[in-house]
Every structure is written in C-alpha cells, then in structure tokens.
C-alpha cells in the first residue's frame, strides 16, 4: 500500500497576511509572524479548512512529491 503524503502550501505572493486562516485552524498549526504566515507541519492535519476560507486563495493542500 502506498501512503500519500499531503502538505499545506502557502502561496506567499498571494497571501495578504490577515490572520483569518489562523482563527479557523482547529489544530492551532498556523502562526502569523508579522507579515509571514507559517505552518507547523507536525501539527497540521491537512484538513483544508484554512484553504477553504482564505479571502485570496493563498493556501492549498497538495499531495507531497
């Protein structure tokens, strides 16, 4: 069986560093360091909630290579 690894991609050129995604993440995996959004891959469960609500579409859950 092949396990597909997923990961959250942050498109920095799209992100407006507003923190909306941080407020909906059930795991507390996102953190806004001033104008730089970070994700803790250990905590993120790739649920896609943040990418759903981002006003600009700056987040995407992708299959990792």
């Amino acid at each position, binding site marked *: 069986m092949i396990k597909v690894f997923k990961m959250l991609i942050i498109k920095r050129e799209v992100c407006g560093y*507003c*923190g909306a995604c941080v*407020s909906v993440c059930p795991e507390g995996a996102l953190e806004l*360091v001033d104008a730089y959004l970070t994700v803790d891959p250990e905590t993120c469960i790739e649920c896609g909630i943040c990418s759903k609500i981002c*006003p600009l*579409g700056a987040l995407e859950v992708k299959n990792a290579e």
Partner: protein
Amino acid sequence: MQSNYNVLIIGGGPGGAMAGKAVVDAGLSCCIIEKRPAIGAPVRCAEGVGHEISELVDLDPKWISSKINGAQLVAPDGQILELNPEMAGNEVGYVLDRKIFDRELVWKAANAGCDVFVKSRASSAIIKNGKVCGAIIETGGKTLEVHADVVIAADGVESKFARWCGIDTTVPVAEIETCVQYLMTNLDIDPGLNSFYLGREVAPEGYVWIFSKGERTANVGIGISGKMCRDGKRPKDYLDAFIAEHLPNGKIIELIVGGVSACKPLECTVADGLIIVGDAARLSDPITGGGIINAMYTGKLAGEVAAECIASGDCSKKALMKYDVAWRDSKMGRGLKRNYQVKEIFIKLKDEKLNSIVNSVNKLDMEIFDTKYLIRELVKYNPWLLKDIGTLRRLLD
C-alpha cells in the same frame, strides 16, 4: 522591557490600548506587546463606528474620515431602504481613519505611563500550577520571559494566546466572515451616506459595504460566510464583479483582507491570571461584523477589573469572573446575544424573502422606529417569519 509587570497585554489594537490606559490610570505597571512594526497598519477594517464611541473616548476630528448621517440598504432586487438620521439623532456615526485612531489610542496609554513595544511577539504563555503568569516574548532576535499578575489577551481575530492557555478559540468555518476591501477613489458617492448591498448573488451570507471616507473616496468591501467560500467564489471574486457593475470608474488605492468572527462569544473569557478581550474573545457583532467599540469597551473593563483584583491580591479565575459577568450583562453583551439569534434567522433567508422584508419595512412609519415595532410589523406582512423561527416570538416579549 522589564521582566515583571502588574499587567502584560498581548496586542496593540483598540482592545489592548484601552486596557493599557485603564491599568496605568489605576496606578499599576503595564506593558503592551504588539507584533507588527506599526500600530494600526495595515488596516484590517471598514472603519465604521456608531456615535456611542464618544462614551468611551473623546473624539478627535483628525481620527475621523467621514461623519455619517444616514445609511441605505439595497435589497437583492435593487429596492432601497433608507435608514434615516431622524431616528438616531443628527450623526449616526463615523468612518474612522484607523491608521491614526489605533495609534492615538496606544499613544494615550503610553503617555499615561504604559510601556509599549512594537515588533515584539508573544510566542507562548508561561503557566505555573495552572495559572497564567506571563508570556515568552520574541523581540529583536531575543527571547525574553515577561511575568505579570494578569495577562490580557487582546490579540485579535487570530486569538492564539488564549489557545496556548488551553482555551479553544477556533472559529467554525460557517461563522467566519471572509473579507476583502478596497480603498477606492474617483467615486460618485454621497460622503455622508453608508451603503449595504444584500443578496446571494452579491455576497452569500454576508454583504457588500460602501463606507464613505470623504469626498469621492470610500472603503468598498465584502464579507461572505467561510462556508460559501471556494475557488472562483472567494470574496475577491464577488467584490470585483460588484465593482465592475456598480463602480466601474473607481480607482483602487489600497487592498485590505481579513476575517471577522460571527460566532458566539467564548464560553468563558477569563482563566486564572488571564482575561480575553475584543476579537480574541469573539466579541464582534454577528450581524454587522463591527468590533471596534466592543473591543474598546471590554479592553477598558478588563484593565479596571485586573487592577482591582491585583489590589485585592486575588487574580484567580473566580475573582476575574467579575469581568465576564459584567460584559455579558451589559448592553453590548445582551446585544450580541440577540444579534446572534437574528443572524441565524437572516442567513437562511432566500433573496425573495429578503426583498419582501425590505418592501414591508419601506411601508413602515419610521417616526416610531424601534426594534419591537419593526419585528411586529415585519411579521404582520411576512407571517412565514414566525413559522421559520420561534426565536422571533421570544424577541417580541
């Protein structure tokens, strides 16, 4: 930065600033930590406030972009409902300039003796025996421990500090309003009038706003429910379509993004050594999304209660509960509760029903405008409202 204060405040928005001023006015030491390099920028707000803001602070003309004396609501079918100034006195409210306003509120706290540090971020909480005792602060490449008798979490919509203290602050997907706004100029608008546009096509489970920023200039923005948001249907897509239709000659001079919670407030807004205020406590209005005044009011109250509890030597959850009880029992707290119920009704309405409501409100006698009268008359013309919701019946009592 000292390693010890009576009160440590996380976040330099309106909530944090008002809290800081209240603490130092009570004669205690206090420090505000703000992670951004500048207070008030970038703006994350449409900047509209009601006239009651003057109950909390003496208004300075340089904070005000526009005085508002009326509003209009545009129904999905284009009918306009005028909300007239006669109902609310001469000035209904203001559109602020928050780059100046937020900074001046922090300035007032600083001048009164509060320490302020920018580009300094709380990265976790210090908790001992279950009591919040301070925060770890990242500043200029250094990591510092700052201890306090009470920490006030005023960290806005992100609300991570309370989460680090073990309180779940997650906003449900359906209850985050995801927003995009442009500051636009070259617009033919009435500078004293704010407009709201409703409808599934315009802004599903939300609205488009045009808030005047003075002559020919306005904040033009949109909030939609997170539930309705997806690729191709994001707030920016809806707003760009709205502008192409209604404001084709407008020029965009600033892009603003953000999230506003439309959920219930946190179940409890205090813990041992911790008070949570403003957006961090999920206190923005579930219908309008307005949260500036609520943040200011709860910030001030938190500062006062913290000072009292420190003076009496008891900063336990039980002692700090005075804050939680006071805001829930206030006009603001009762308003939030009622508006949450009203929101639950209105987001379910189909466009035809919204049209029919606006149509019947337009028939009303605005001289005797009050909420109960409004609801009673609405039900008269739209009896299905009662079938949909027992809540309205309760609101009539």
